[in-house]
């Protein structure tokens, strides 16, 4: 785009971001502060992910952007257009064809490969913030691996509800050391992060933090021996492709309680239907 550098950010800013990314990869799950810039999209709408994507994408890359698993949700469209305009890169909706995937709230159903990078948009990088709002204090807790409070929270849920009741942004332990917010993906997606072949990068623009999970890293959802982690999905088959294992969106079809369930991952669903046809 005329008047702007490749992928919008100037090279000095990209360098700053890449330094933060290298640190993040070196200490899996540890949050690295970085000098997040104002982007032409609002904070909270993916500015962290956009900055990370802008700093890793090259002219030969193919970009896929999803929001809620779908390529055609308005914010995914907006971000994909942003990079098509500012970087002129190829874009795709096919998970297997993408080299960089920016996502909000989902991990694609198609397993990722070691030739891919997945960039998560993160609203709140601090997994402990609901227990301790002061980031000065949570930094200390991370330094000491003082995560007892989170286990107590899970225990209180078991005591109160008979089970762990976290549905999304379910906290994970990375590389046996750092407690990490997986971003608001459903707990259903957490197991996909474990020893994922792709590099996982996380950008939180407003909170000015970057973190990462290198390929093949241990990512374990917190639980108890007698109350093991459970990944929930709606107990239905997709009404369009019939998949009984994918994560489903619930669609309200009338005002009399009518519901249908369809794949949240639109590319996964379309590919299955193409194959069946």
């Amino acid at each position, binding site marked *: 785009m005329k008047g*702007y550098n490749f992928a919008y950010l*100037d090279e000095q800013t990209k360098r700053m971001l890449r330094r933060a990314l290298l640190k993040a990869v070196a200490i899996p799950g540890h949050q690295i*502060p*970085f*000098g*997040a*810039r*104002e*982007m*032409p999209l*609002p*904070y*909270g*709408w993916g*500015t962290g992910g956009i900055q990370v994507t802008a700093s890793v994408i090259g002219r030969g890359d193919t970009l896929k952007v999803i*929001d*809620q*698993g*779908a390529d*055609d*949700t*308005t*914010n*995914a*469209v907006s971000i994909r*257009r942003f990079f098509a305009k500012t970087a002129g890169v190829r874009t795709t909706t096919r998970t297997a064809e993408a080299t960089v995937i920016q996502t*909000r*709230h*989902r991990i694609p159903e198609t397993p990722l490969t070691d030739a891919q990078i997945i960039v998560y948009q993160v*609203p709140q990088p601090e997994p402990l913030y609901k227990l301790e709002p002061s*980031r*000065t204090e949570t930094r200390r807790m991370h330094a000491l691996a003082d995560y007892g409070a989170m286990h107590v929270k899970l225990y209180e849920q*078991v*005591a*109160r*509800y*008979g*089970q762990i*009741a*976290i*549905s*999304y942004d379910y906290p994970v332990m990375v590389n046996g050391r750092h407690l990490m917010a997986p971003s*608001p*993906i*459903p707990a*259903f997606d957490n197991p996909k992060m474990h020893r994922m072949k792709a590099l996982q990068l996380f950008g939180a623009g*407003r909170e*000015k933090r970057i973190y990462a999970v290198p390929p093949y890293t241990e990512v374990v959802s917190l639980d108890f021996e007698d109350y093991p982690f459970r990944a*929930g*999905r*709606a107990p239905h088959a997709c*009404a*369009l492709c019939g998949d009984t294992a994918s*994560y489903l*969106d619930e669609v309200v*079809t009338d005002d009399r309680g*009518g519901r*249908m369930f*369809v794949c*949240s991952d639109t590319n996964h669903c379309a590919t299955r239907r193409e194959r069946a046809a």
Partner: protein
Amino acid sequence: MAYVAVKGGERAIDAAHAWLAAERRGDTAVPELETAQIREQLGRAVDRVMAEGSLYDPDLAALAIKQAQGDLIEAGFLLRALRTTLPRFGVSLPIETETMRLARRISAIFKDLPGGQVLGPTYDYTHRLLDFSLAANGTQATAPEAEARDEAAPRVPDILGREGLLEADGASAAEPFDLTRAPLTFPASRDARLQGLARGDEGFLLGLGYSTQRGYGNNHPFVGELRVGEVDVEIVPPELGFSVCIGTVELTECQMVNQFAGSKTQPAQFTRGYGLAFGHAERRAMAMALVDRALRAEELGEARTAPAQDAEFVLSTCDNVEATGFVEHLKLPHYVDFQSELETIRRLRGNTGKPATSLPEAAG
């Protein structure tokens, strides 16, 4: 209703933008607003946008206000997004507010003082009666003129400081923190705090400043001085080695004089709260000064009990570009998270009456 896959996001976005542009223009029978009119006639709005957008450019601020349909937070965001792409040629010398060409200068603690009290253009003593003549036929406004006083107007803190009654300004770090390039970390130094406050949301700062006056972290403030006017901005180009003036900016500066610090060994001294804003923005500068002083509680050995005294709370919350983004992002789809919550709540409801409730820990 049959399920229709939600397609057509691209077309919807284009149509929405076109509608927005038409709505912005409004009734075409009414003449279109020129940015020069905004700059000249809505100056206080321009000043607020420059402060919160942290970019001094009245013309671009006027354009941003026009583009944002007068939504000043949106306009500030537009300026910020531009500002972040601009190259940096250098850093200016510290501005000298002592040599400000004053449009207004008042002190609430001395009846008269060197340089005098200069009332200047203020709403302070206007009666808030709607002036219907402004709607009817506009005004031919001419102000009486007088010769500028040829007298130095030293800053009130310097007057107090000579007697040692006011604490000295802390030594400034050689290289000030840069909030626009580095992430804020805590504890935050005063330069970082002042930068955050200088572009913080005016309403939020006003509320926090007011809260200190209502007992949530009171610091017994007096307006030592409030001055508004133009100052020169100077840089030292490396190839020249001496300073040159590259332009002027209008500023509002507030020096708040607050109650004492001191001890048996340290003589009592008034303490400082400082506010500085682009343009003519007295409310902002005063609120900033109140909050700056409140944030110094720890350094001055005061108990930190109120929100305005908590630097992490104040500085992490006061930026309205961040705040509006995150509040408004709730409009984005959350189908996936909500679906996972639906599954959880259905599972929990199915469990009601089972072992969980018999555990004593479940009480409360």
